[in-house]
């Protein structure tokens, strides 16, 4: 820049200060409305009502009802994350490597953008209208095929129903994240493997999947956290009849005055820990899987 040596210090200082003013609001904001609230919960989980350090709150997590709520939550999140990854992967593979027409690929990607954001209350309504007692598919199955869905024990207000609903945003999210990764698989890798005598299966096992590993693991962790924190869908779908961790916490917060707020802290803390562990595992595995990248 054409600033003369004399005026340099004079212009440099205000510029530095202005730069800091540019980023300061962000940090202040993140501190006040993201970090401190979270820390407050974490610290609160280790304090009793008198403000003394304790592990009692965490101990209460192991009461049968809360423990089972967490288990259901973990199972639900893990199942929908794994199935979301699997089905999302199949669809993404179909549109990237499967030789389908280009417009179909674009349509599916656009739809995935919509569906992955169509979570929460409206999604629950859509599934009630489809697989509820009077839902579209329920009626269709009964009238056309004579299958009584609810007679066979199915209910949309169940673990299975919830899992089916969660997959509606889990699968598209996977499609959106993994499609660029699949596009990154070079055609020559496959051809090189083939010319060296490898079968399609061997190519996938030895080259494609190892290359995709980091993305797959990352998405799995993200999908897990995504399902774990999804409260609105669950509440709109089941009311509070299915006891999963975020719904228990929701009830705790609502009924704060009556219940023990420190149990709430403990539940919230456990939720943070679980998503953090999921991401920690992801980061660890990713570092190992990415030895061959810069």
């Amino acid at each position, binding site marked *: 820049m054409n600033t003369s040596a004399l005026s340099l210090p004079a212009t440099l200082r205000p510029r530095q200060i202005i730069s800091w003013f*540019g980023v300061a609001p962000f940090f202040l904001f993140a501190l006040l409305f993201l970090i401190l*609230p*979270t820390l407050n919960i974490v610290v609160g989980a280790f304090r009793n009502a008198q403000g003394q350090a304790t592990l009692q709150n965490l101990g209460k997590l192991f009461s049968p009802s809360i423990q089972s709520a967490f288990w259901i939550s973990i199972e639900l999140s893990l199942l929908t994350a794994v199935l979301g990854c699997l089905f999302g992967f199949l669809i993404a593979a179909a549109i990237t490597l499967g030789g389908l027409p280009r417009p179909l690929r674009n349509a599916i990607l656009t739809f995935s953008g919509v569906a992955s954001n169509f979570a929460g209350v409206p999604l629950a309504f*859509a599934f009630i209208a489809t697989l509820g007692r009077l839902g579209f598919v329920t009626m269709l199955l009964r009238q056309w095929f004579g299958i009584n869905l609810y007679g066979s024990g199915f209910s949309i207000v169940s673990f299975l129903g919830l899992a089916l609903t969660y997959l509606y945003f889990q699968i598209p999210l996977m499609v959106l994240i993994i499609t660029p990764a699949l596009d990154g698989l070079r055609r020559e890798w496959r051809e090189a493997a083939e010319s060296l005598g490898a079968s399609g299966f061997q190519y996938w096992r030895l080259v494609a999947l190892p290359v995709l590993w980091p993305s797959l693991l990352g998405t799995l962790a993200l999908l897990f956290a995504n399902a774990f924190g999804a409260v609105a869908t669950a509440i709109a779908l089941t009311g509070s009849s299915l006891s999963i961790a975020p719904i228990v916490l929701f009830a705790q917060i609502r009924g704060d005055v009556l219940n023990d707020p420190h149990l709430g802290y403990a539940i919230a803390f456990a939720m943070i820990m679980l998503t953090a562990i999921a991401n920690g595992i992801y980061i660890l595995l990713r570092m190992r899987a990415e030895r061959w990248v810069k």
Partner: protein
Amino acid sequence: MTGKRFWSWLAVTFGGLYFLLPLVGMFDFSMRMQRGAYSFEAYRVVLADPRFQQTFGYSVVLALLTIVLGILIVVPTAYFVRLRFPGLRPIIEFITLLPLVIPPIVIVFGYIRIYNTSSILPLTGSWWGTNILLLFGYVVLSLPYMYRSVDTGLRTIDIASLTEAAQSLGAGWARILTVVILPNVFVSVLSGAFLTFAIVIGEYVFAALLNVNSFGPYMVWMGGNRAYEPSALAVIAFAITWACMGLIQLFTRFSIFSIVRR
């Protein structure tokens, strides 16, 4: 070759069935309010409901404010980090990813504990305070999307040269940001904005736990008390999401900015 294509079509067909049936079901159900005939009665009832108008209007305003505040916080940050503090990038990226990792219900729980009536900053005690807290909460939820899209936009332009050029013409920081940088990352900002809109408009957990009557809690209330109207609401919400995503596509694909930049 043909085998591969067969399996691809199979995967896409099954996927299509799974993804389209709930939409068909929701639409079908929303039309059945009048016995024996398809009608838009449920939509009429919903749209005429003053509580719908009130909560929906509230959520739209809140979503727009979220977008404005989000831009005000994110654009200068992303800009100065790229220009002056590249070392801060990993920290900022980490922070902006946190809302995807920490469940929203935990964040709002923290708000209730920190900003309750007996704290130093009793935001939840007043109408204004509660609304501001909700707004800030939504900005937090939108951070991952906003920051990512703005940062992607900044990556495609040479901000250092643009800044120097503007400075040599005598522009100050505020002017550089609003007149030079913002128009150049406009399309990216818009993508973030529409995504934010889609997320905020029907949000439930924050609003419900802060006791704010926005569109999300209204929908849940309808779900517990009515039969056909919830489906109509779901169709409306789906249409809004679809519109937001469609607009993002439209802007990124057909914008003069992105064409010029190539």
